């Protein structure tokens, strides 16, 4: 359990470290709050988990999701919050996360985000990082890679997805109002997704070394 909490703390850390960067990305084609919102949310999650730890992975994820929903606001709050709650459901009753569980959680998260946000890949949103990441993860699994390697593949794919968002016009979220003017800019939400995957991968690497 401590590990899930530590993993989420790793997310908090990377979000706080990139608060300004995410806000700047959002300023260019949005409303300059993505980093601020995410930081507020993860600080709240961190505080919550510090005082009221839950007894299973599902519980921790659900509590985190609920906290994100009630503290982040904007578009990212419901989307990431829903993702966490869906991941909680997928991890229900688990005490460790194996590759299969991770894949199921990944899939659940994407499903939640798509349902809430009514977006598909290619609209310059977090999905442009998350979906390729998921696909790379699945393919890695199919090729028999371990969880850490699958996560590395996912993170790489998310990073490419972030780059890809620069090349497309936004058709969902606030940047969509800009039309052509959104070209050349990197999506803030895709970036935060990438950063969290990277942090998770780094955490898994460190953890697997320690274990």
């Amino acid at each position, binding site marked *: 359990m401590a590990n899930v909490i530590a993993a989420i703390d790793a997310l908090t850390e990377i979000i706080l470290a990139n608060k300004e960067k995410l806000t700047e990305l959002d300023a260019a084609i949005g*409303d300059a709050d993505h980093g601020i*919102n995410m930081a507020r949310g993860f600080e709240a999650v961190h505080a919550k988990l510090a005082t009221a730890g839950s007894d299973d992975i599902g519980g921790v994820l659900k509590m985190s999701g609920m906290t994100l929903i*009630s503290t982040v*606001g904007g578009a990212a709050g419901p989307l990431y919050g829903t993702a966490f709650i869906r991941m909680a459901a997928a991890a229900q009753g688990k005490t460790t996360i194996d590759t299969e569980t991770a894949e199921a959680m990944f899939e659940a998260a994407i499903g939640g985000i798509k349902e809430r*946000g009514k977006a598909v890949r290619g609209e310059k949103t977090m999905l442009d990082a998350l979906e390729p990441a998921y696909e790379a993860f699945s393919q890695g699994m199919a090729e028999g890679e371990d969880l850490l390697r699958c996560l590395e593949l996912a993170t790489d794919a998310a990073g490419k997805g972030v780059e890809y968002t620069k090349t497309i016009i936004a058709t969902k979220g606030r940047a969509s109002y*800009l039309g052509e*003017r959104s070209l050349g800019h990197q999506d803030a939400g895709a970036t935060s997704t990438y950063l969290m995957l990277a942090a998770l991968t780094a955490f898994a690497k460190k953890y697997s070394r320690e274990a």
Partner: protein
Amino acid sequence: MKKLINNAEQVVEEMLQGAVLAHPQYVKRVEGFNVLVRANSPVQGKVALVSGGGSGHEPSHAGYVGRGMLDGAVAGAVFTSPTPDQVYEAVKAVDGGKGVLLVIKNYTGDIMNFEMATEMAEADGIKVAKVVVNDDVAVENSTWTTGRRGIAGTVFVHKIAGAKAETGADLAEVQKTAEKVIANVRSMGMALSPCIVPAAGKPSFTLAENEAEIGMGIHGEPGTHRETVRPADETAEHLVNKILADMSLDAGDEAAVMINGLGGTPLMELYVINRKVAAMLAERNIKIAKTYIGNYMTSLEMAGFSVTVLKLDSELKELLFAQADTPALVQF
């Protein structure tokens, strides 16, 4: 960043405290939440209206809480949609048994958060309906976007649907009236200067000394294009032409007009703009039944304005002229 604040993290909290202290005759706080509701909430036997959104648009939305307009307003962080639990608290605090209409501006975040709140309230057995305001014609209507943004036209929705609710109409009727306003209201704005989100500490864009941003939203998000600042009349003309091109307002029709300041523009300039807007409507033989001029839906300290035109029929006109008694809009 030069602001009259104490702390960027506390600015919404301190603003809400200051608002309750300024307007105790109108509003009270829902303890523990960033929600202001009418001092006498819940009002029984009347559909309640709840609106909200990010902070930084003051007097929107808490300034319109009072008789004849809203029952509750939810304040998110600056320019950030409020979270579902906050909206849910507002709904619970104002429901007088006839249900609650949510007035939402068309932003992905607002819609998702208000929808989640709706699910929560409905689980409690509260009747909830919603309308989504999308009056900004700056953004071309196309299947490529999430639709148009909601801006100052929202205040007309508050005013008219609020008046309808006071008549004792039921939830579906109030919703229908709100939708009629939305169908008939169009706005467009522009900015001469950016604004600074307190927590960000710097402007979200910069404009050269002679540049204006046309088609601005109200969150410091970029507009449709930039141009060299033009005389007020030309600027007004550009905006009004875009607005009129998008609505069927014919000679002999009646309309209400709002010349809305974005926060940093003096009333003097809004009057200069109104002179041209009124002249353009007069030329087209459109009767202006009522003009609202001032800061109604702002964007922090941004200099700039928006024009809103609402086509009136006899129902909308009567409700527009109905009494209102709120901190920011009082009408005999």
